[in-house]
C-alpha cells in the first residue's frame, strides 16, 4: 500500500530527486555545531507565530473601540483562547531571542563571510522584521501600557532630522497615537510584515540550502571530515529541540499567561513603568543616559543616529571584515561582537530594573 502510494506520488512529483538531495546533504560536526539549531528553532517559533496568529485573527478586531474588548473576549470566552494568545505572546519573545542568538552565533562563527554575504543580509532584514512584528504587535491589545509605549516609541522616531516627522506621522497615521495607528499597526502586523518575511525567509532558506552550512574558520574541510547526515539525523535532532521548545512554551504560557491590562485612554495620565518590549530596552535605556544637548546636537537625535550607524556597520560586516573572507582570523571582530553582546545585556538589565 505504502509502496503503491509512493509510486503514485513519484510518478507525479519526482520525489527521487529530493531523496537523493537529502541523502547527500550533510551537516558538518565541530565545536560550534550546536549553533546550527537556532536557525531551526527560529523557524519553528515563526511557524508557531503564524498558526496562533491566524487563530487570533478569527476573533481579533483591529479597531480602537473593539480591539481591547475582542482580546478580552478571546481570553475569557473563546475555548483555549487564553492559551493561544499566551503562546503567541511568548513565542514572539522566544522568537526574537532565538533570532538574536542565531545572529550572534553566525557573527562569531564568521558565517557571514564570502560567499554568504546575501544570507547574512537577508538574515539581518529578517531580524529587523522580527522587531517590527514585536513593535506592531505590542499595540494590538490597545491597553494602557501598549498605548503609551507606542507613543514614546514613535516619539523617538519623530526626533530624527528631516525624515523624523513624516516617519512619525506615517507610523501613527496622524499626529497622535489614535485608532488610525492601531489600524495601521494591525495592517503591518498581519499583512505587510508576514508577506515580506515569507519572501525574504524563502530567499534566506534557499541560500542556506544552495550554499550549505557554513563552517568555522580553520575547520577541517576535507571530504572525509566529521559530518552528520541532514536526513534523518539532523532533522530529528531539530525536531527534538522543537519539542523541548514547545514544552518550554507551554509551561510559560500556562504559568505566566499574558495580561490584558486596562483599556487605553488617550486622556488618562501615563501610567508608571512605561517601557518597550525587552528587546528594545538597551536602546531605550541608552537614550535615557544621553544628555539633552551634545555640542550642537540634540542628545536624543545623536543617540538615534549613533544606533543607526552602528546597526548599518553591523549589517555590513561581510564587506568590511575582509580578513575573515580571506580565511584569516580577525580578533577585532570578536572584540566588537563581545562588546555589543555585553552592552546589550548590561543595558537591558539596567532598563529592566525598576
Amino acid at each position, binding site marked *: 500500500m505504502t509502496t503503491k502510494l509512493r509510486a503514485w506520488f513519484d510518478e507525479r512529483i519526482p520525489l527521487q530527486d529530493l531523496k537523493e538531495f537529502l541523502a547527500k546533504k550533510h551537516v558538518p560536526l565541530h565545536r560550534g555545531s550546536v549553533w546550527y539549531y537556532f536557525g531551526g528553532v527560529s523557524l519553528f517559533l515563526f511557524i508557531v507565530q503564524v498558526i496562533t496568529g491566524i487563530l487570533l485573527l478569527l476573533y481579533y478586531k483591529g479597531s480602537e473601540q473593539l480591539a481591547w474588548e475582542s482580546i478580552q473576549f478571546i481570553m475569557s470566552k473563546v475555548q483555549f483562547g487564553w492559551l493561544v494568545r499566551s503562546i503567541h505572546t511568548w513565542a514572539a519573545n522566544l522568537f526574537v531571542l532565538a533570532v538574536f542568538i542565531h545572529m550572534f552565533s553566525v557573527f562569531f562563527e564568521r558565517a557571514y563571510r564570502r560567499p554568504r554575504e546575501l544570507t547574512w543580509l537577508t538574515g539581518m532584514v529578517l531580524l529587523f522584521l522580527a522587531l517590527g512584528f514585536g513593535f506592531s504587535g505590542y499595540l494590538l491589545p490597545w491597553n494602557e501600557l501598549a498605548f503609551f509605549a507606542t507613543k514614546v516609541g514613535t516619539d523617538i522616531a519623530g526626533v530624527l532630522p528631516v525624515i523624523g516627522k513624516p516617519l512619525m506621522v506615517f507610523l501613527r497615521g496622524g499626529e497622535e497615537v489614535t485608532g488610525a495607528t492601531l489600524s495601521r499597526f494591525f495592517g503591518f502586523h498581519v499583512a505587510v510584515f508576514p508577506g515580506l518575511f515569507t519572501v525574504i525567509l524563502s530567499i534566506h532558506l534557499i541560500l542556506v540550502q544552495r550554499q550549505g552550512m557554513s563552517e568555522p574558520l580553520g575547520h577541517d574541510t576535507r571530504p572525509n571530515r566529521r559530518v552528520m547526515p541532514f536526513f534523518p539525523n539532523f532533522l530529528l535532532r531539530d*525536531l527534538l529541540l522543537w519539542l*523541548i521548545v514547545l514544552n518550554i512554551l507551554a509551561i510559560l504560557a500556562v504559568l505566566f499567561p499574558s495580561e490584558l491590562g486596562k483599556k487605553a485612554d488617550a486622556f488618562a495620565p501615563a501610567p508608571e513603568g512605561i517601557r518597550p518590549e525587552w528587546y528594545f530596552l538597551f536602546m531605550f535605556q541608552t537614550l535615557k543616559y544621553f544628555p539633552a544637548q551634545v555640542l550642537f546636537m540634540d542628545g536624543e537625535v545623536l543617540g538615534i543616529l549613533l544606533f543607526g550607524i552602528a546597526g548599518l556597520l553591523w549589517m555590513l560586516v561581510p564587506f568590511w571584515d575582509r580578513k575573515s573572507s580571506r580565511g584569516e582570523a580577525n580578533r577585532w571582530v570578536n572584540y566588537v561582537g563581545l562588546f555589543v553582546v555585553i552592552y546589550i545585556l548590561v543595558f537591558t538589565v539596567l532598563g529592566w530594573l525598576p
Partner: protein
Amino acid sequence: MKTRAWIGPMLVALSLSLCSAAPAVAADECLKCHESLGGSIPALFRRDVHFAARISCSGCHGGDSSTDDMAKAMDTSAGFVGGSKGDAASMMCARCHSDAERMRSYGSKLPVQQWESLQASVHGKLSGSGGGNAVSCVTCHGAHGIVRVDNPSSPVSPLNVVKKCSSCHANAAYMRMFNPSLAVDQLEKYRTSVHGVRNAKGDVKAAQCVSCHGSHGILKAADAKSRVNPVNLPATCATCHSDASYMKEYGIPTDQYDKFSRSVHGVALLQKHDAGAPACNRCHGNHGAAPPGVASISNVCGTCHVLNAELFAGSPHKKAFDEQGLPECETCHGNHEIVTAGTWMLGVSDQSTCGNCHSADANASGFNVARMMRSLADSLLDMEAAAGKLVDEAEQKGMEITEAKFGLRDVRQARLQSRTVVHAFDESKFRAVVEKGITQAASVSHEASEAIDEFYFRRIGLGVSTFIITILAVCLWLLIRRIEARAK
C-alpha cells in the same frame, strides 16, 4: 482697570499728606462755622466716636480747622479735599484704621485689617460702575455719626445690621447690578428664623448677618475660605451652638457639632470634603434657620433621599408615625448623629430599630416582617461576600473574570436598592429586590468558581501535555540514538 490700579496708591499718598497729625477738636473752627450754618451734620459729629477721640473735621476733610478764615481753612493747596465718596472715603478711614501705631495712640484695640479685608471681600471685588468698590466704609458705618458697634444706635449694631445689609440685599433692582441670580429674600426668611425672631425681640446674642458671614472680609459662599462655605459652615454654627455658656440661657443642647462630626454626613463633609454632603443649613435652612418640625422631617431628608421619602410616604408606617407624632426619618436614624445605615437596623435583635416598636407580643405582624426582611438582607450580604471572595480568588489566580466583577457590581447595586426599598416596609417588594441580588450573586459565584476550576484544569492540562511532549522527546532521542548506532 488701569485707572483702578493707580488710584489706590495715589489716594494713600494724598491721605498721608492730609494726616500728618489729626488736628485737635478743641480748635475746630470748621465745626463752629458749620453749626452756625445749621443742618444735621455738626450735631451728628458731636456724638461721633471720632469727635470723642478729639479728631477734627480736617482729620478727614483736610484743610486747616484751626482758622476761622474760610478761604484758608478750605484752601486746597493746604490739603483740603472736601467730601470723599466710595473708595476715596474708605482710603481716608484706612489712613488711620490700617495704622496700628496710630490706632494705639487713640487707645483703640480695633483690628487694623478692615481695609485689606474689605478689598479682598466680595464687596471689595464687585463694582457697579467700575470706579470703586461696591461697598465702602461709609456704606455701612455712615459718615458723621459713627458710633461703636455695640452702641444700639450704630447701623451695624447686632439689632440694626440686618436692616443695614438688607438695605442693599433686599433691593432686587440694586442687587441685579452685581449678582442677578442672588436671592433678595434673606431678610424675609431671617425674620421667620429662630435667630430672626429673637433678634427682633432685642436679643443681641441671636445670630445676625455678621455672625455667620463676617463683616469686612465677607466672601462668596462658594469660596472655600468663606465662613458659610458648606465645609466651613458647621464650624461657623458651632461657634455659638457648641458654646455651652453662650447657649445656656436658650436651654438647647450644645453637642450637635460633635454628633454631626461623627455622623455619615459629617464624615463625608468634614473629612472627605464632599461638598455635596449636607451641612447644617441643608436641613435647618440658612437665613430662615429653624429646627424642622416633626411633620416636615421626611420632607427635609427627602430633598436628597427622594426615593426613600417617597417609599416611606406610601408605607404603612406613615400613618402610624403620624398618629403617634413620631418624627419620621429621625425615629430610626436619629438627627445630628446619623450613622451609616446597615442591615443591623433591620430585624428584631437588640440593636435593630424595628424592635423599638415591634415585639412578638405587640405588633406581631410587623415583628415577623422585620425578622423576614433581616433574614433576606443577611442572605444577600452573605451571598455577596461569598461571591466577592470567589472573584478575588479567581483574580489572584490570574483568571480573566471581568464579567463576574461587573456582575458583582450588580449584586452590590441590588443590596443598595434593597436599602432604599426597605423604606416601603413591604415584604414582597423587598423580597423581589433581594432575590434579584441573590440570583445575581449565585451567578457570579458560579462564574468565579468555573474560573477557579479552569485554573486547576489548566495546571492539570499543562502537566499532561508536558508529560506527552516529554515522552515524545524521549522516544525521538531513542530513535536518533538507534539510527546513529546503526550507522556506526
